[in-house]
């Protein structure tokens, strides 16, 4: 009886929920730069960001790591900004800045008190218009990137797991390698190649400028025009990355990591790209398995059987494909336990394939999704990135930011079962034993 009431209450709640609509203005400059402006005056803050549609998947197979390298290189200065000044200018204006790179895009940003809006535009337009790319910058950043790799990958427990999975899951498509790339490739690259890569991809017609925060839209438009309109357009960019042949036989392999003592078992399945509805269904499937302590895998393996220290599953969703990854670490750290963990994981997949998830679980994952997405637009930087993502990846649909929750609500329990059946089959996957390196 009590339970009945609770469900009713939840359903009532769901109908009154409404997401905050993010209002925006968008247009193209003649040089092809797409501009998105969002006004929010609750705090005296502005985020100025540029998302370039270039990532590691745009690299040549013998020049991996270029896109990420540019994340560093494009802080080296411009015709009007001396080397080493970029970050100093940001700080001197009380701002923060950074950049990040994925397989698909690179995102540069500054967050300033709103009185420094123009400085943000100046910095980003200088970076787009005439960055300085020379030997000294390349050499310095080459060392820095190597340190970053040591820090984030080589010295990091489980730091190589994604690379180990991706190189087995993708053999033709450039998702074969991860964004940090190969240090040997970077070492052998000539200055001309860096300049050519910049000229090809870091151009207005391959970018979205998003400015979000305490701004006056009309004034900002004029400044955008002043700073960004003079930037010459680039050549047309065509992308036709290789398609993968389906995996038809399970790939079982072992990888070693110097930095770990607790092994891990992982299985990974190739899934469709980010814009597909199936990708969302797969994400919900992963929530059923591992979001929250009452999720299926957590409850079974960590709490009831107690054979896992940690479990997880997620749909690593990218532009062209995704990777659905499930993993577990044995409690006690014993490698011989991996087989049992794998079976426990597999049983849960089979259950997803053979039975619809319960109504209660369905309500749960939708509430969890909503709870998480409410926070995504709490700060101006988050808003800027979500707007840019929509334009860059969802067929130029900047408004995707406002449709996210609605899209999730269109996914049914049947959809979740369907994707589990279609994509999460044993013969379509990579199973990886990720083990501590033995002392030699």
């Amino acid at each position: 009886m009590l339970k009945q009431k609770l469900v009713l209450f939840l359903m009532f709640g769901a109908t009154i929920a409404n997401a905050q609509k993010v209002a925006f203005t968008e247009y193209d400059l003649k040089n092809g730069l797409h501009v998105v402006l969002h006004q929010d005056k609750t705090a005296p803050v502005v985020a100025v960001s540029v998302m370039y549609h270039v990532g590691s998947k745009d690299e040549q197979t013998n020049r991996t790591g270029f896109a990420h390298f540019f994340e560093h290189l494009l802080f080296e200065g411009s015709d009007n900004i001396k080397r080493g000044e970029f970050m100093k200018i940001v700080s001197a204006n009380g701002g923060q800045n950074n950049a990040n790179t994925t397989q698909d895009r690179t995102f540069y940003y500054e967050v300033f008190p709103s009185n420094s809006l123009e400085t943000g535009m100046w910095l980003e337009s200088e970076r787009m218009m005439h960055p300085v790319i020379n030997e000294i910058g390349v050499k310095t950043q080459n060392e820095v990137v190597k340190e970053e790799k040591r820090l984030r990958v080589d010295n990091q427990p489980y730091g190589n797991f994604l690379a180990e999975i991706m190189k087995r899951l993708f053999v033709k498509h450039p998702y074969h390698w991860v964004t940090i790339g190969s240090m040997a490739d970077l070492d052998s690259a000539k200055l001309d190649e860096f300049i050519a890569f910049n000229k090809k991809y870091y151009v207005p017609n391959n970018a979205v400028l998003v400015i979000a925060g305490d701004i006056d839209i009309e004034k900002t438009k004029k400044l955008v025009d002043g700073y960004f309109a003079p930037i010459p357009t680039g050549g047309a960019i065509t992308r036709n990355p290789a398609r993968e042949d389906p995996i038809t036989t399970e790939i079982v392999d072992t990888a070693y990591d110097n930095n770990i003592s607790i092994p891990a078992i992982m299985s990974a399945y190739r899934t469709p790209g980010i814009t597909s509805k199936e990708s969302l269904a797969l994400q919900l499937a992963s929530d059923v398995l591992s979001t929250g302590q009452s999720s299926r895998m957590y409850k079974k393996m960590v709490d009831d059987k107690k054979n896992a220290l940690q479990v997880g599953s997620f749909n690593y969703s990218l532009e062209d494909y995704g990777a659905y990854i499930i993993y577990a670490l044995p409690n006690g750290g014993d490698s011989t336990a991996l087989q049992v963990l794998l079976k426990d994981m597999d049983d849960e997949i089979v259950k997803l394939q053979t039975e619809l998830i319960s109504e209660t679980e369905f309500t749960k994952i939708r509430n969890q999704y909503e709870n998480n997405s409410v926070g995504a637009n709490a700060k101006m930087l988050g808003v800027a990135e979500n707007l840019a993502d929509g334009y860059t990846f969802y067929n130029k649909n900047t408004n995707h930011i406002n449709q996210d929750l609605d899209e999730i609500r269109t996914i049914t329990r049947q959809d979740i079962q369907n994707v589990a059946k279609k994509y999460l089959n044993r013969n379509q996957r990579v199973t990886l034993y990720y083990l501590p390196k033995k002392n030699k």
Partner: protein
Amino acid sequence: MNKILYTFLFTAVTFAASAQVTVDRSKQPKAGPAPVIEFKNPEIFTLPNGMTILVVENHKLPRVSATLNIDMGPVKEGEKSGIMQLMGQMMGEGTKSMPKAKFDESIDLLGADVNLNSTGGYTGALTRYFSQAFMLMADALKNPAFPQESFEKLQKQTITGLKSGEKSASTISGRVVNALGYGKHTAMGEFVTEESVKALTLNDVKQAYKDHITPSRSYLTFIGDITPGKAKELATNAFGSWTGKKLPVPEFANVDNVPATEIDFIDVPTAVQGELSVTNLINNPMSGKDYHALLIANQILGGGAEAKLFMNLREKHGFTYGSYANTGNGRFQAMFKTSAQVRSEKADSAVVEMLSEIDNMRNGKITEEELASAKAKYNGSFALKMEDPANTATYASNILINGLEKDFYRTFLQKINALTIADVQRVAKKYYTRDNARIVIVGNGAKILPNLSRLGFPIKLYDKYAEPIANKPKETAVGESDKNSEAVTAFSIINDYLKAIGGKDEAKKLVSQKANISLSVQGITLEGTQIKMAPNKEHTILKMGGNVAMEKVFDGAKGHQSQMGKSAEMDTAEVKEAMDEKGIIPQVYYITNDYKTSYLGVEKVNDQNAYKIKITKPSGKVSTEYYSTKTALLIREESTETAGGEETAVIVDYSDYQKVGTLLFPLTITQSAGGQDLVFKFSDVKINEGVTDADFK
């Protein structure tokens, strides 16, 4: 007509617009007037049981969070190390009325986040589910079930988790830096170990709960889509009747800094980078007069990508991905720390650069631009922080907990903006105790240690748990070297030497050697020959004016020595020692189980850096050999000779390496013993020709 007018107007507007947007991109745009920063006060009220409630109302998003923080300060766990963390986790393992599975299910169904920890808990939820989620957190805090089964699960997980960090240089560094700085038996320096966790019991959890989870000195902060009235109602319902122990304010004696700057090294042979920290302890309460100046000093030294450390270690030298400074503050003793994760080969250089930037701060080498930028960053970050309503609550609770003036944050920027370079230098000098600092490095000893001695600081070795390593390295046969990094190092030094003289294979092919020798001693020159044959046959003869002055013969089993007409058979011990040599170049055989080698560090030999290794030969005789860090060649050998019942240290220096055939030979050998230097010069070296067994009769 209308249309024409419209077109005309349109053109005029666009013309006007483009006329306005000419920008001068040659220089940085001027910032507009600084935005006004409004400080809002949270609603604050207290419950009779000692709980303080703060409410920051903000309806922008349909969500609410509540955080309970019990202001217990650092807790000294002593031999119960790990108990607080475990107790915090145990509160999430179900309540007296709700087993864990039900508790988890209830939270997840709301899509909420509810976490419990050793100092309280957190609830975050959509507005419409917040009350229910909040009451779940309250139930867990007030009525934890503490099932034995959960205790065993978490205990095992904790141990497994500790194992997972065993090899991680950054985990080790995090532990050791505090343990060395504060002392491993203090609240701030102690750490959890597998042994301490194994010894814990469920009763310890219950006791820790009783002692620490209490409304006394606790702060409950609501943020978001909630009115103060509703928050008060919820708080009163949940905690109004809650009682618990009265918490004392903990007090700790100050820990002294080291009397002189030293390097504390922890060897992690698998580490790809070195974790470098320079630390000293400080007292920096937020209410203190130096607090603001220390913030700015920290910002200039290592507050971000434009600060001195980053600009030097990353942008100028590329030693690291980033280098930062952190100046602790608060009611208790805190740590000043600069740190970087650097590549092993450059760890020594990184120390030098890091110290030089600390010196620059102390010497006032700070530009007006740096000062202005640091101030701007604080002014800016105050504006940026307004995006997050949680900061309003943080400011308010900081004032309460630290006993600050009510207008602390309203006057904050005023105080920051009034600081001068002299102020910053003064606090840097006072608080960055450059001459009483610990330079803690966690990393690959084989790569990093040899270069550190040039820095001139005493080097102390510690293990992963901050225990000093006694100054006698373990003796390990090289054959067993896989488990012992010191032996691996000795092994590689010997291998490098063999490579440097022409390769191990070439060295093995050397079966005989014949050379002329001349010896200068006290102005007199002796001439002679030395003949050697593998494995250890030797015949050395030195003549003065046609007469034999010295002679030494060993045929592989027996031998004799004569000096100025007096002759003596080699005794058993001497024969045994002579048999130690398995070849003309004995290093080839150091890499066998008959020899024990250990690496002792780096020392200067005749102004060169040299790796020092200790060799224990099959006879038990010990010698110490020094190989140049630069050329890899053997440059010195030290041993003890017993003559006439007395032990004498003998030092043999090797120099003037020249190529003979495929191998390098030292053509000058200087032997120092008993205050006398003998310089042997070799010439006309012939290898693998003209030597027979008959030469050793």
